[in-house]
């Protein structure tokens, strides 16, 4: 499925594990930008918006590298964005059960492949910046996307690929531990 911002109820049709592309505008935000937005208000129109956990390498007007950062760091700062109308969070590694509940009925978490910074940059055009005083990594960059390839990691119905995989890994780890304990020393 090809998505375009501003996003609406079409995000409710997505299911964890689906491959999609996203076009239109995204806003980068990491730890410090989240803190400032919560304190001072969101500087862009959040309705139907997509927020990307990313601190890009920018040279002049060009984005050179823009892969995702670890989303879990933003777990505690995500509610106000979703309540303001943000429909997609993009990042890597997934988010907490609390965020999963906040996504219900309104938004999705889209995973972009960690480290694929040049691939991301090849689908991006820089269109503006907020909070430049936070520095290159922490500023909010407004970016025009052209078909960024993503996986639905958490959908709007409580399905969470990361949690499912994590649960299975935990079970397998327990199996491994039990089998090694039974082995003679």
């Amino acid at each position, binding site marked *: 499925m090809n998505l375009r911002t501003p996003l609406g109820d079409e995000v409710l049709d997505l299911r964890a*594990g689906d*491959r999609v592309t996203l076009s239109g505008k995204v806003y980068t935000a990491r730890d410090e930008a989240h803190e400032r937005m919560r304190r001072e208000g969101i500087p862009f129109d959040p309705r139907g918006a997509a927020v990307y956990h*990313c*601190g*890009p*390498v920018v*040279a002049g007007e060009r984005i*050179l*590298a*823009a*892969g995702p*950062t*670890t989303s*879990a760091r933003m777990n505690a700062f995500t509610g106000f964005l979703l309540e303001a109308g943000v429909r997609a969070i993009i990042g*890597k*590694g*997934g988010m907490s059960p609390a965020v999963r509940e906040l996504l219900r009925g309104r938004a999705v978490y889209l*995973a972009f*492949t*960690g*480290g*694929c*910074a*040049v*691939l991301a*940059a*090849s689908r991006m055009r820089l269109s503006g910046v907020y909070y430049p005083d936070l*520095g*290159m*990594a922490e500023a909010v960059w407004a970016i025009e996307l052209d078909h960024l*390839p993503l*996986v639905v*990691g958490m959908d709007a119905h409580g399905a969470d*690929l*990361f949690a*499912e*995989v*994590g649960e*299975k*890994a*935990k079970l*397998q*780890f327990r199996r*491994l*531990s039990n089998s*090694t304990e039974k082995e003679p*020393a």
Partner: protein
Amino acid sequence: MMRDPGDPALFAAIARATRDALAEAEVNLPRDVIAALEQARSRERNPVARGELDQILANVALAAERNAPLCQDTGVPVVYVTLPPEIACTFSLYRAVEEGVRRATREVPLRPNVVDPLTRKNTGDNTGPGIPAVHVRPGNEFRITVLPKGAGAENVSRLGMLLPTEAGTIPRFVTETVLLAGGRPCPPVILGVGIGGTFDGAAALAKEALLLPIDSMDQYEQAICDAVNTLGIGPMGLGGDTTALAVKVRRSACHTASLPVAVNVQCWAARRASRVVEVPP
């Protein structure tokens, strides 16, 4: 005759070698790592995981083509220097390496990642007290090896002071480290394992293990790698057969009452490169 790295021509050569090694590491993934990713792609059965590995391989090719850093987290510079007997180990050696880091930051360019640990103020040039970490060893040639280390994988690395009787649980400790990390370190990962030494020594060994080529593993390393891959965490934690590309172990002697074990987790973007310093006449 003993040469001083403070000599302007030699200083410039050291800075250039550091800069060039960083530029190479940030853009071109080592061949053994690319080969491991390709093999993983051909073996992978999970369709989401295959998609992720395809994107990784596409990104690797695109970075080389555009001469751009593979990942926006260009890491903190970790530098290993081998020093031949005719080069003096002076403070200027460290200053020259720092100069090379500053040049790479401007010219590659690299993201300025280095901050004060408490105020979080960015130094702007990827240097600061203790950064770059420069490890100097005696050697036959004057060589600079860089290992730019991203934070996602570094943050889930782990150190355990095991009991001397617990050597059999080391594979479990390593596997548990990967379990706790989940998708956060950008799997598929490479695991550098340091066994023995002291508290700090084990961690240093684990990082040095990441300098080893990953095109072969011994039986011990392979067994740990296989166990880790049964977890099914997969690329980016989205599930799949490929959680670790390789495990590399380095050992050192230790106290009879200790068993330090360190696991330094490395993301798939296992960047390392090396340059010989061209010593001017």
